[in-house]
């Protein structure tokens, strides 16, 4: 039972190895003169769709070479990022940051280089550029993708419940959250073994992304005891008894398995989720994608590229980040992995507009997501504690889902949790 020590040993061996590797292929920074190319490392998580772009760049340049460092999830990337920010060294030249974590990063913006460049003004959707800008007006993150949301649904299960299955007709039935939930009640009455949506957490997150100040006021005061948040909480927990929710934790094993077991009929789908659905529902027939989102538009997720100030090749790194987040490159990344571009010009590019997805019954995903992006009106205010509070909120919903507490008990515990965040 010495797994902790073993873990530590493994870690130190790993650290030693990676140090060795770093110094082996290192010399970065030393070689910024004429004696060889500068290597710029780009740290990403999940799938950014950069592999082919990097090959293209490396083939065309002999002064700069890009090297990608990939990890599985944002959580892993975050742990690494915070640890090395604290240490003051060891980060890649370019670090990708997940959108919801950006406010916390902005609070530490001194640790990142100012990427402001007048030539890039107007490259991104306004709200995306704003989300990468700190309080002093320094742009520290170049937007990569955004997460405009549509509704993924199972046409075959809709048919079983006697509901319309055509994309446009379905879109007409879910204009508001009330319509969406009412339709869900019809559905679960007809198909009792299947829930209406994938998880309480997913729906709550979609609803929160339409609230102006979900957890914090504009001056970063934590204010979770507010009417908007309580309304979302009450609605979502109220739906649990009606059988609308699978009552599963989003991203958990049971949630993944529910795709294969007709667990639910609809879910909130940002662009990057299409790939997740396709992976989890492999072999399942009947998925489709509707050009609608209850309550208007909503954006969930999307990332940024930042350049840590501790790096030695800030100038070259900035150039690479600017190139990777240019409209034409992000359009190619969308074709590769479905990450929907945050660049204004990319939204009109044929690669994006004419994209369709065979798994979703050949839905014109490019066109739908572009429409969904335009429908986004509210950008919730997210302060430095946003992602910490969101975790506590998700846990509160789950306590009601899994039956360990009543909605009231769980709400009180959520307030205590937020209090204890310190």
């Amino acid at each position, binding site marked *: 039972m*010495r797994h*902790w*020590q073993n*873990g530590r040993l493994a870690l130190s061996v790993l650290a030693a190895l990676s140090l060795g590797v770093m110094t082996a292929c290192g010399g970065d920074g030393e070689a910024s003169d004429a004696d060889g190319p500068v290597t710029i490392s780009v740290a990403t998580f999940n799938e950014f769709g950069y592999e082919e772009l990097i090959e293209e760049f490396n083939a065309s340049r002999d002064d700069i070479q890009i090297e990608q460092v990939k990890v599985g999830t944002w959580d892993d990337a975050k742990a690494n990022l915070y640890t090395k920010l604290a240490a003051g060294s060891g980060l890649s030249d370019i670090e990708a940051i997940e959108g919801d974590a950006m406010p916390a990063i902005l609070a530490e913006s001194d640790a990142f280089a100012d990427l402001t460049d007048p030539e890039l003004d107007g490259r991104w959707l306004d709200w995306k550029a704003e989300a990468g800008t700190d309080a002093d007006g320094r742009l520290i993150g170049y937007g990569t993708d955004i997460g405009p949301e549509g509704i993924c649904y199972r046409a075959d299960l809709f048919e079983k419940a006697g509901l319309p299955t055509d994309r446009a007709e379905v879109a007409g039935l879910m204009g508001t959250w009330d319509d969406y939930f009412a339709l869900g009640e019809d559905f679960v009455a007809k198909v009792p073994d299947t829930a209406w949506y994938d998880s309480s957490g997913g729906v709550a997150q979609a609803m929160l992304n339409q609230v102006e100040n979900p957890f914090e006021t504009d001056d970063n005061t934590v204010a979770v005891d507010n009417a908007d948040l309580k309304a979302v909480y009450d609605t979502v927990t109220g739906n649990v008894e009606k059988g609308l929710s699978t009552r599963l934790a989003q991203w958990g*094993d049971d949630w993944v398995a529910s795709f294969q077991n007709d667990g639910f009929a609809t879910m909130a789908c940002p662009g990057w989720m299409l790939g997740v659905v396709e992976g989890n529902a492999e072999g399942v027939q009947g998925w489709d994608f509707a050009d609608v989102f209850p309550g208007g538009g909503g954006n969930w997720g999307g990332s940024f590229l930042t350049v840590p100030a501790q790096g030695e090749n800030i100038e070259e790194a900035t150039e690479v980040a600017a190139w990777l987040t240019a409209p034409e490159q992000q359009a190619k990344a969308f074709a590769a992995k479905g990450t929907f571009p945050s660049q204004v010009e990319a939204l009109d590019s044929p690669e994006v507009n004419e994209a369709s997805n065979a798994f979703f019954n050949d839905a014109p995903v490019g066109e739908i997501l572009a429409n969904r992006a335009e429908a986004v009106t509210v950008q919730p205010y997210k302060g430095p504690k946003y992602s910490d509070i969101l975790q506590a909120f998700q846990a509160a919903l*789950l306590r009601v889902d*899994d*039956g360990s507490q009543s909605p009231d008990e769980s709400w009180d515990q959520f307030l205590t949790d937020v209090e204890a965040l*310190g």
Partner: protein
Amino acid sequence: MSPSPAALPAAELTPVTNPRPPWRQRLSSWDVRTAPYLYIAPFFVLFGLVGLFPLVYTAWVSVHDWSLLGGQGEYVGLQNFRDVLTNPYFAKQLVNTVSIFLLSSVPQVVIAVVLAALLDSNLRGRTVWRMSILLPFVVSPVAVAIIFGSLFGDRYGLVNQLLGGIGLDPVLWHVDRFASHVAIATMVNWRWTGYNALIFLAAMQAVPRDLYESAALDGAGRVRQFLSVTLPMIRPTMVFVIITSTIGGLQVFAEPRLFDETTARNGGSDRQFGTITMLIYDFGWQLRDLGRASATAWMLFLIICAFALLNLFLLRRFGVLGGER
């Protein structure tokens, strides 16, 4: 020790101009006196660097406001310790830790001893059997957690489907506090039982065979031989295994963290199976407060010391499994 010149016979007296023993002699005496220390030094130097220094430094961090990103803040005395002790989850996660530890360590030691005794007999293909019980230990704990996590799925997990097959209700492995501890202890046991069994086996191999022969002559059966010869003879190994599994068991982290399906990964929706090390991680790397994380780490250190001493005391007091009155 080199003899002093005064003690030498007169015939062999060195010239008065050089009363000191020759260089080589002094070197060898110096060698004899100090070499043992040099041989053991690497361990202590290494321990000082990676064991003692972090321990002391953690104590230093724990009495300050210390943000992961902002670095050292002001001195706050024992405030961090007070904050942790009043945190509603500290007591709960301490109880979880002890509960998971007991559910894993106790059955583990018992099963490991029995397994070792079975392997110590004249089996055919002994080596194959002995190697095969170590297999689970070779598999990475992450892989184990992923596989067991899907076995213990609340809704679509294999275990619940089997239970349903024989007409029992499904168990909510991720919701019910005790059930989640059992599931996690199962993973820990799966990994470590074989490892400990091999250590016990090595100890059993060292028991003189003539003791068994005399016991057999006195009419002791297999079970009686095991209780009266084997167990008392492997007591030192027993102490070693119990202490080391206490140290490891109270630091359980990977299994519960990977068993968790919530986004926060703090050990279930209501921290049903959050452990103390997970609380340290939560404070330090999710809430970015190294002060509270260090305070928690120090308390865990003290708790482990207390448990190890208690173990030692109990083992001394009662002998192992009543082997000696």
